[in-house]
């Protein structure tokens, strides 16, 4: 294998694994600056900060792969966190948590109804749903964080049972594994890919497209609720501030990782990588003392660039002459 073909193979790999390359590039870049980036504390902290969003991403990925889209996850996340914290005040903590998760499932069910059964455009109707839920969350908390009442609650996310990893990270890895297994090794998961890849072919093959696509929305709602509970646990408070732009950012991150909006491609690990790109980006920018406004700018540019590339590659495919 000569240099040229090696170069070409490398180029092809790089264009397929955009997220991985971006992460590696940033990791390499950070080697050149004297910061605390490469301390075990920071690396774990980086994982910890991204974990909640990662869990959100895993659920959304299932929806996107099956051809849908869910922008209500931010709203579901904050609402479940608040529900859990508020209910904890007069009932068993675990029951409160379960109710919060059921809430997520219900919202997912409603989203599924609107998109799959009623055939509405998913992105804007889930956006509206997210707005409603965020507003509700703000209303219930008067836009001020509500502190948790049960001391054990904090430990769910923040306790460190295994080594020095927070429980949150462990739970995130568990969710990662579970969703990965579902998507890769179960009939449900493979059917999601089929539906996202070609709805009609999937339908003709006897796959119950309606049930499965609807189910994907429900699962997404559940994971968003779990993320919300864990977030509240992490901060020991139910807050509504993260509701607004979270959904859009997470959806974009998932595309960054390689899960296309067209559906039928991508996977959980890719979604995790996509989120990690933003996680590493934020962490390194913080380490480098980059102005917070420039951070927002960078985030915006990354989002636009990735979506642009995603659309452009589809355009090239369409026009193959």
């Amino acid at each position, binding site marked *: 294998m000569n240099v040229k073909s090696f170069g070409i193979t490398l180029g092809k790999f790089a264009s397929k694994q955009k997220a991985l390359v971006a992460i590696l590039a940033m990791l390499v870049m950070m080697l050149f600056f004297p910061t605390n980036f490469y301390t075990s504390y920071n690396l774990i902290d980086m994982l910890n900060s991204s974990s909640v969003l990662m869990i959100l991403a895993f659920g959304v990925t299932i929806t996107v792969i099956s051809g849908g*889209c869910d922008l209500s996850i931010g709203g579901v996340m904050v609402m479940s966190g608040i529900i859990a914290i508020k209910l904890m005040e007069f009932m068993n903590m675990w029951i409160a948590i379960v109710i919060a998760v059921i809430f997520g499932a219900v919202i997912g069910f409603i989203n599924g109804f*609107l998109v799959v059964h*009623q*055939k*509405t*455009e998913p*992105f*804007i*109707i889930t*956006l*509206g*749903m*997210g*707005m*409603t*839920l*965020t*507003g*509700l*969350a*703000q*209303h219930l908390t*008067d*836009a001020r964080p509500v502190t948790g009442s049960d001391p054990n609650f904090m430990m769910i996310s923040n306790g460190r049972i295994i080594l020095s990893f927070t429980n949150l990270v462990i739970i995130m890895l568990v969710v990662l594994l579970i969703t990965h297994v579902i998507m890769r090794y179960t009939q449900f998961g493979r059917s999601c890919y089929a539906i996202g890849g070609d709805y009609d072919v999937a339908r003709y093959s006897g796959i119950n497209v309606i049930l499965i696509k609807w189910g994907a929305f429900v699962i997404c709602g559940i994971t968003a609720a779990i993320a919300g509970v864990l977030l509240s646990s992490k901060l020991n408070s139910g807050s*509504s501030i993260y509701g607004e732009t979270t959904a*859009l950012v997470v*959806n*974009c991150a998932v*595309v960054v990782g390689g899960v296309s*909006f067209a559906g039928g491609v991508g996977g959980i690990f890719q979604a995790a990588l996509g989120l990690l790109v933003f996680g590493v980006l934020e962490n390194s920018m913080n380490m480098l003392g980059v*102005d917070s*406004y*420039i951070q*927002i*700018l960078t*985030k*915006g*540019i*990354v*989002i*636009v660039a990735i*979506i*642009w590339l995603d*659309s*452009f590659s*589809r*355009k090239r495919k*369409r026009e193959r002459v």
Partner: protein
Amino acid sequence: MRKKFELRKTFGSFFTNYLVLVAIVLLVLVTMIVEPKFLSSGNLTNIMRQFGPLSMVALGMTFVIIGGFIDLSVAGTFSLVAVVTVSLIDPIGQVPALIAGLLLGALCGFFNSVLILTAGALTQAEALFITFGMSLVYGAFALITTGGAVLNMRDITSSISVFEGIGQGTVGIFTVSFLIFLVCLILLYFFQSKTVMGRAINLTGGNKTAARLAGIPVDVSIMVIYTLSGLMAALGAVNQFARVTTAAPVMGKGFETNAILAVVVGGTSLKGGKGSVLRTVLGTLLIILMSNCLNLLGVTPYMQNVTKGGILVLAIWLDNRKPL
């Protein structure tokens, strides 16, 4: 039998078309009774003043939606134009600053369209994400320009007469901002219903493929709708900061959702192809009335967001069920 079915269909569509209108009219009536402050001149002026900025943004948004797309970047453009214009008053003078601001808004919008066209984005979803990203970019520029600070016009410069005139001035019984709105409305209505480009935008939203094959300049239409949206956002920003004489780098926040809401509530379909600026005016009025009434009735601003979100979901759902 057929006549009965048709009657039911017409009544049904009337109902869904005007469900929100009826609901808000009822709300206004209820508020008038419960809280007579509603009819006070102070409150009515308040309503008129809030109407200005939102109406500008919503009018611009109307064309984007008629064309079959969407623009989430208006919030960022709004903030950016506000801070840049205010910052430029001292160096280059009021009127030049004003012109520069409007051009900036148009440029932001134009740039959005370039991104969308070069990417070959055909769907509303792709446009949603691209304009969302640009919203962050423009908003970040606004923050960087002022370092996060709120610019108080009076502190920066002594010459704010033009803007004061825009914001507070009156001509007869009308406020200047209302007159600006009226002029814009007339021009845009004319544009939409009587010009070739207006028709081209309608057709692009109706069926992009057919329009292109028939020789309609679809790409140009897309550029026009976004540039116009940016320009209108800029006008809205001027309207806003002229009134309060301060420009905050986050002042655009929420305008994009309110604008979309105004368009949808007014009766323009998100599917594109049909709609009217007149409907949007109604929608804007309804949204502002709704906020105003709910405020007077003591409903928290958050619950208002809940209502707005709920209305959006309802409106989209019902709109989807309507046959073409």
